[in-house]
């Protein structure tokens, strides 16, 4: 028992060393600017307004919860985010692609196997972003009950998946299984 106590105290000290190493690494990453840390974007007067006012799809004005992700063909992280979608938009995600030219937009979409549809629109002249006063990408705008509610930068795919609205639903098939049991 004494040995267990002494070893546990040694483990405590070693865990302290590990934590300190992690802190050192984080400090270095902070200097290099590669922390997984989103920044809040102050959206000012845009807050509480309907998305369609800025040229975003009208359908957004009636959604309960969604994220509108602004990407640019010139931004490295935007390419990484688009690549992570694997040609498929998850539920609740809408994308606006800003591009320098129609060719640039087409190239971006083709390279990431994306196709414009109701939830993915191309903004070649950057008019939507201009109306909103947005000059940064990638930025995710949160839409709640058909109104723009807030925005943050989106530094990684991991963070993007964490801010997407997750609808809570009953397990499909559970009701039919229960009905089958009832009939037996």
């Amino acid at each position: 028992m004494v040995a267990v106590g002494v070893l546990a105290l040694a483990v405590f000290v070693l865990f302290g060393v590990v934590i300190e190493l992690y802190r050192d690494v984080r400090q270095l990453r902070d200097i290099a600017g590669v922390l997984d840390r989103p920044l809040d974007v102050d959206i000012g007067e845009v807050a509480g307004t309907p998305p369609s006012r800025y040229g975003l799809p009208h359908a957004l004005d009636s959604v309960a919860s969604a994220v509108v992700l602004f990407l640019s063909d010139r931004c490295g992280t935007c390419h990484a985010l688009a690549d992570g979608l694997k040609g498929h938009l998850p539920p609740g995600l809408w994308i606006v692609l800003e591009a320098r030219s129609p060719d640039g937009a087409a190239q971006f979409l083709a390279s990431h196997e994306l196709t414009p549809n109701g939830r993915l629109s191309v903004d070649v002249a950057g008019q939507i972003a201009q109306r909103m006063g947005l000059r940064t990408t990638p930025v995710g705008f949160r839409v709640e009950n058909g109104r723009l509610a807030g925005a943050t930068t989106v530094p990684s795919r991991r963070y993007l998946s964490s801010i997407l609205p997750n609808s809570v639903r009953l397990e499909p098939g559970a009701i039919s299984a229960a009905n089958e049991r009832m009939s037996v």
Partner: protein
Amino acid sequence: MEIVATAVALTLAVVLFWAGLEKVRHLTPFVSTLRQMGIPAGGAQPAALVLLGAELGVAVGLVLRPASAMTLTAVLSLAGAFAVSGLIALRRKQTVRCGCFGPYGNGYLGMNQIAAFPLWVGAVALLWVQGTPPPSGLRAASALAAVGLTLAALRAVHAVRAAHEARGDRRSADEMLVWLPR
């Protein structure tokens, strides 16, 4: 009531072990704190070592002889020293970083140490009134193991959190660096 007294003694032991072992690992911040308190450069290091030894010694005493007069006097002396250091820090113009629990803490010396003094006194009074007899060899060893495992578990939570955070940073960096111009 004996269970409460034992729990209080072991809690105090956890606090003192934590403070002492953190100083074993990294004494410099604590030496710097003592120098800020006005202890001359030549005396700060020995004073830090004495306090470190006192904290660990009292922690062991709380596990092995929780109600002995010597242990309780040592606990009161330490608590008094903490409170006095808090008072001195409050009287100084500059804020003094605590360094009480190693290099991680962001706390400052002052009101916290003064406010903790009645709690220390209360705990000592409880242990004195209860007068728990010294535990047997096996019970004392079990108590030491419990204290050590508690400390390791608390620290493990921080380590896992730090690892999780670092993993997030690493994955984020991977995703971004892929696209940076080489």
